């Protein structure tokens, strides 16, 4: 189906099984915690060779020679694969075509240029360190690494009215410059693949988020047809955007397997994952807010500078939610991208809002202080009726509700916001809040649902479950629609032999592929109703039987019933702006002497359409809030100024929050149905938790100790430097 109209009456609410939305634990959880769920590199494939990528220790230039013969002399080495088809960068999310190939052209430090294949992993790894390679390296003086040192290109620019004048005329205005550092996805499972070639068919077990695009990217890279490739990705140990596109190890393993006629496994080292997979761009942002006496926005300006390699279409979409979150007649939104030679920038956990929203929310906090309006009230006053420029209505909008419910549960009292109000020993204690917003993404998806003659059902799609709960919720949707308990529905994912799903990314998996499953189930219900001789809307299915007591098994009379559901977004997004919203409230303590900050408690209230499973949705919110803590306090990529290489390339030196950094996180899921978002009235939740939370923490730091830090992450040195003297 194509969705052109809001789906106001959703069948999911009229069914009898009663499992939709219920807090059901992940169906694959047991396999994962017992270590029996195989990840890409763990398939026991016989006769498998081990490949290790060779990377370039130069920032830009050409590989002039690789001494393959000498390489082959090394212990255990079977092949040194250098091939023009190897990819030099990972594919961007949803590219659907090969990324930059020709690995002999080096564009960033650490770029893969060849693959050594040996009998053992240790032999291959050792050989990569001793391979004789010559380079024609460009003079580092000519290679830009710093986004501020090049003339940027304009990526987007829109304006309305006269922001400068509004700033001038307004009784209250804020002009804030805020920076964020680069981030890494930092998924636990490294990028890895095992490729097998039988002369006709290439089978690759790989750790990927979007098989429906990845198969096209791999086919294009290898000059194969899609029907000559099978990709399998049943379990993915975290992706966070870094596995949206096919990456270097998968293409290299495939080429090697086809050349050598033996299976080849390639697993990136942790350092390689950091150095040649997508980074989130650092950003420099300028926020200008002009407001009347009551804090009503009259001007709204958000400008950003981000970076990427030459030739990349992706630019961190910093302004994404700034377009519609708050009003203000005079608007200026501009984004530039600097072409520099750090590794590829791409999607990392909520691209755009994860860094744009915290900056905006710091500026809003400054405006609250400047105008004397309570921060919650300030946001409530500035929620627009419709899209501030286009005038399009919102499909459904729960920001106000989130702000109110969050404030109530957290105990936000709307009282004085004077900083430095509470000190316990060395620690300043303060509170802060921020809004959350994330655009609603949705994509075409297919899924096949079969009711088997034995009364169980099977859902099949090449959709992936990257740890978020997709297996579980698809089973809940099918079970609800077909009147089956969750354990009577087998969900099969992560194999391109199944119908094309949507892939996991941009928080769109649940609503996109969930809708495909829903559509298939609607068709199945029609056939069942026909067989039962009742109208479809009168058909009641529960626990494997219809209302008159006849079981599905009897109704099917030994036959399987199968339908493929095909969901397409349609043109409904011309008529509505759809987004998920939320609010964060947090209390932090900041050490007066050292600037160390610890989050003491945090409440998040989120509205993201239908909750398909309370447990998995809550877990997504908690995960997002945890990343908010990372973005606020610890996560930063550090690049060498001389050759642009990433210096902190492991999990000891790239600091994601550890357990001790994360307090008990309170999550409120605000009741919402969004009929225009998807046929199942669901929107995305995966990324929402990281779309502004760092701003709440920054605002709490200010409220606690009076240090208004303008650089994320707010490590002790930065907080200490801004700590007011007594």
């Amino acid at each position: 189906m194509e969705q052109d109209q809001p789906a106001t009456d959703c069948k999911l609410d009229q069914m009898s099984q009663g499992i939709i939305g219920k807090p059901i634990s992940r169906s694959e959880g047991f396999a994962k915690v017992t270590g029996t769920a195989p990840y890409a590199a763990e398939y026991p494939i016989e006769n498998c060779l081990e490949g290790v990528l060779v990377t370039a220790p130069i920032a830009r230039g050409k590989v002039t020679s690789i001494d393959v013969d000498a390489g082959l002399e090394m212990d255990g080495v079977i092949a040194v694969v250098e091939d023009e088809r190897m990819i030099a960068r990972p594919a961007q999310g949803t590219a659907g075509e090969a990324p930059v190939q020709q690995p002999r052209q080096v564009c960033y430090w650490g770029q893969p240029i060849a693959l050594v294949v040996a009998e053992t992993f240790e032999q291959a790894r050792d050989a990569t360190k001793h391979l004789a390679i010559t380079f024609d390296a460009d003079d580092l003086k000519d290679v830009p690494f710093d986004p501020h040192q090049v003339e940027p290109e304009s990526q987007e620019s829109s304006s309305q009215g006269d922001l400068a004048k509004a700033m001038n005329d307004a009784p209250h205005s804020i002009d804030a410059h805020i920076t964020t550092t680069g981030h890494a996805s930092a998924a636990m499972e490294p990028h890895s693949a095992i490729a097998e070639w039988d002369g006709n068919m290439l089978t690759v077990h790989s750790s990927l988020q979007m098989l429906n695009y990845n198969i096209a990217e791999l086919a294009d890279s290898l000059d194969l047809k899609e029907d000559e490739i099978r990709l399998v990705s049943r379990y993915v140990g975290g992706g966070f955007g870094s596995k949206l596109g096919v990456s270097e190890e998968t293409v290299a393993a495939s080429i090697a397997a086809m050349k050598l006629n033996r299976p080849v496994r390639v697993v990136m080292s942790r350092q390689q994952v950091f150095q040649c997979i997508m980074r989130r761009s650092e950003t420099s942002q300028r926020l200008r807010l002009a407001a009347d006496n009551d804090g009503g926005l009259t001007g709204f300006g958000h400008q950003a500078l981000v970076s990427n390699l030459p030739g990349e279409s992706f630019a961190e979409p910093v302004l994404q939610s700034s377009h519609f979150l708050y009003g203000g007649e005079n608007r200026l939104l501009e984004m530039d991208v600097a072409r520099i030679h750090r590794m590829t920038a791409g999607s990392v956990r909520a691209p755009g809002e994860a860094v744009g929203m915290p900056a905006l929310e710091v500026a809003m906090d400054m405006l609250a202080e400047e105008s004397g309006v309570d921060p919650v009230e300030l946001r409530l006053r500035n929620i627009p009726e419709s899209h501030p420029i286009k005038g399009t209505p919102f499909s459904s909008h729960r920001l106000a509700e989130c702000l109110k419910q969050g404030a109530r549960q957290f105990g936000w009292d709307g009282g004085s916001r004077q900083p430095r109000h509470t000190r316990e020993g060395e620690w300043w204690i303060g509170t802060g809040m921020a809004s959350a917003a994330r655009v609603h993404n949705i994509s075409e998806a297919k899924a096949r649902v079969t009711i088997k003659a034995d009364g169980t059902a099977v859902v099949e799609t090449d959709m992936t479950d990257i740890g978020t709960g997709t297996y579980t919720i698809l089973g809940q949707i099918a079970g609800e629609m077909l009147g089956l308990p969750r354990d009577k529905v087998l969900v099969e994912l992560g194999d391109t032999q199944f119908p094309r799903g949507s892939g996991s990314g941009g928080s769109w998996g649940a609503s996109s592929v969930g809708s495909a499953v829903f559509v298939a189930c609607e068709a199945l219900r029609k056939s069942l109703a026909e067989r039962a001789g009742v109208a479809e809307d009168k058909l009641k299915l529960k626990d494997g039987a219809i209302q008159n007591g006849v079981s599905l098994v009897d109704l099917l009379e030994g036959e399987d019933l199968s339908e493929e559901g095909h969901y397409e977004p349609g043109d409904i997004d011309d008529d509505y702006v759809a987004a998920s919203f939320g609010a964060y409230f947090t209390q932090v303590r900041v050490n007066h002497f050292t600037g160390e900050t610890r989050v003491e408690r945090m409440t998040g209230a989120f509205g993201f359409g239908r909750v398909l499973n309370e447990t998995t949705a809550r877990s997504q919110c908690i995960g997002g809030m945890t990343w908010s803590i990372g973005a606020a306090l610890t996560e930063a990529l550090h690049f060498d100024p001389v050759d642009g290489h990433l210096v902190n390339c492991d999990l000891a030196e790239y600091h994601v929050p550890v357990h001790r950094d994360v307090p008990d996180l309170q999550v409120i899921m605000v009741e919402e149905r969004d009929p225009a978002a998807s046929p199942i009235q669901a929107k995305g939740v995966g990324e929402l938790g990281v779309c502004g939370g760092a701003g709440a923490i920054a605002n709490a730091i200010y409220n606690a100790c009076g240090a208004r830090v303008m650089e994320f992450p707010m490590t002790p040195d930065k907080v200490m430097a801004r700590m007011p003297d007594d």
Partner: protein
Amino acid sequence: MRPFQYARPDGLDHATQLTAPADTMAIAGGTNLVDLMKLQVETPQELIDINRLTMGEIADTDDGGLRIGALATNTATAAHDRVRREYPVLARAILAGATQQLRNKATTGGNLCQRTRCYYFTNIDQPCNKRDPGSGCGAIKGIARLHAILGTSPQCIATYPGDMAVAMAALDAKVEITAEGDKGRTVPVRDFHRLPGDKPEKDNVLEAGEIITGVTLPGPVEGKQIYRKVRERSSYAFALVSVAAVVAMKDGRISRADLAFGGIAHKPWYDPRLSELLVGEAPSAALFDKAADLLLEDAQGYGENDFKIPLARRTLAATLANATGVEL
């Protein structure tokens, strides 16, 4: 990882013989060495596995102190009853380091000898005088966030990254070292690590064929013991700056002030002048300032780590305030 030989010595003497050749290395918990071998930062031809030697004991010494065997794990040391009661600064320093899993494997000897976390040291495609003498120092012009502000040299600005040894320096512990033919020696922890000078490849005074057998702590002393570690996240991060303090008061005046610092130098930093300055004085903000002036007299930042100078000052003041009961 390069291919290497592996040997298990029969006893300590045998171990010292086996570790005498230049290309051999002892392996204890392996939590530092194996990581560095995978990166080919360390490339021993032969690994001498000392884990079966009986050096794990923690025992009282005749003069009322405590001897911690070289193979005692960090977990065992931190959990030892006397360590917790009489040397809490040591227990806290150990527990402030790494993770439970790592501490279960990490040993006293290995912890003392752990190598710097300098980003350029661990990346063999970058210049580093410590790893590859004469190749240059990548950090001086690069990202020196983790790096030293005291006792640096133009060749190397790395820090000793550990916590345990900082507490041991404050406690004035001694490292027991043995060599082939029983030529033992004892070196104060305060002198065990070196400054980089023009030989940054040498972290400490250990010579080839020498093995650490244990560390002895002198008898317990009066006073408050504090280990304070400033870091970017609350666990599983190395110190930006740390302070180990053993401070006693008598009649309103400081009667003992043994202070050592981590994260700011190529060794646990112990400056005897601090004790001289502080002892006999009444504690005050002004006095702590003077102590910081003295400590940081020759401090030099390298851009990214400039913040360590004020951070060390503030951490010192906070620690002294805490130890002496002064409100700042």
